[in-house]
């Protein structure tokens, strides 16, 4: 039987999250199919990327003095 090595490349993992979604990716991390540390790094970077706010949103928060939720 072939020994399967867990995926470790963070960039590749980021693309995988885009493809299969964050919940399935987490499931694969939990099962060991994806290296846990690399998986956590990829997920962190991915969430940082998707939570960037558009300029209109930044402007509105700046003017209204309200908290940007994702940055709390």
């Amino acid at each position, binding site marked *: *039987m*072939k020994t*399967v090595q867990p995926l470790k490349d963070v960039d590749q993992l980021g693309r995988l999250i885009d493809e*299969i*979604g*964050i*919940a*399935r990716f*987490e*499931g*694969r991390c*939990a*099962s060991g*199919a994806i290296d*846990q*540390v690399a998986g*956590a*790094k990829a*997920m*962190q*970077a*991915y*969430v*940082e990327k*998707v*939570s960037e*706010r*558009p*300029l*209109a*949103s*930044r*402007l*509105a928060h*700046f*003017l*209204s*003095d*309200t*908290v940007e*939720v*994702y*940055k*709390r």
Partner: protein
Amino acid sequence: MAAAKFKASQEFRAKCIEYVECKLTTKGGYHEAYSGFKHRTFPYLIGLETKDKTNLIVASVLKILPLFLGAMVPVVARKVYPQNAVAAAAAPQGPEAVLKAIASIDPTDAALIFTVVFFTLFNKLSEKYFKRSKVSFTTPHTRICETIESLPLDQFAGISSTPAASDALLKSCLAGIKHEISVLLLDDSEKVISDVVYWEFCDKTERRMRVRSRLVMDKPQKTSVEAHLLQAYYVAKTGKVFAEHDFQHRDNPFPSERASSVDNGSVAYKSILFVPIIINEEEVDSAGETIDHDYCIGVLCVASDRPFRFWRWGDQNRDEGTFGKVAYDHIRPYIQLVRRLAMHGAYRVEVNA
């Protein structure tokens, strides 16, 4: 009769699958932007959503007024202290001079003032825009998740000694999820989230689902429900986090009666965040290729009575939305715990590739 019923059921399924797939794969566009702005963004910005009733207009005026006053200073100073010696001698002195100077601001002066204000604001905005927070790769969540994953499994998930204790822990997780999402919604009172429910499958045929645990047990519960009537089932099949912004909207094909309670009362909630709990198994085929099989063992449903709670401005331009992903990241430790607690003996459905 039976054939007609079967056909109607198949049509309903097809409509539900199309609805969920369409929501996951297409951007919301202008329509979603309008509804989201109306129900979520605007009330938040004018202070209706938060405890402090900071008014958008008041806040904006308080921020911009000093800028305008600052920009006016050189213009007014030029008028109060004319360069010409004769004019200076004839010019009024003191506060009267300042008021007269303000009253005599012409369009050229106004343009100068606006230019100063614009560049000052632009500078501040660009600072905010280009400021990138450094990504911390090791968060407290990462460590907690690793710890939970390394817990040994025994008959009751290695965490508790009895099924009752396991169920109590599961309910505690749901309470934790409610708290985390409330923090994300800036809802200190924790009133925006009305309920958190964990649905699981009753058998391996995928036909029926039941509520394994829920926070608000206000009505007698059915023992099981036909899975194809539940939006949670279709989300389970996709394996993706899904935010329903208005469950009672006419485009939503799902019945508006409460599926889980015996009396079938109408649903109060409008926003639901569906979080499927996924496990994975790898197989190596005869050619030595690794094949990943993802299975859903249950779905967490976070419900709110208000529409567009799990939405942020900008989500209309992303096909899967952003809020669900950020929320998932916030509740990851609880998801890990729920997985560990629920996976033992759970029925599972394979996620569509």
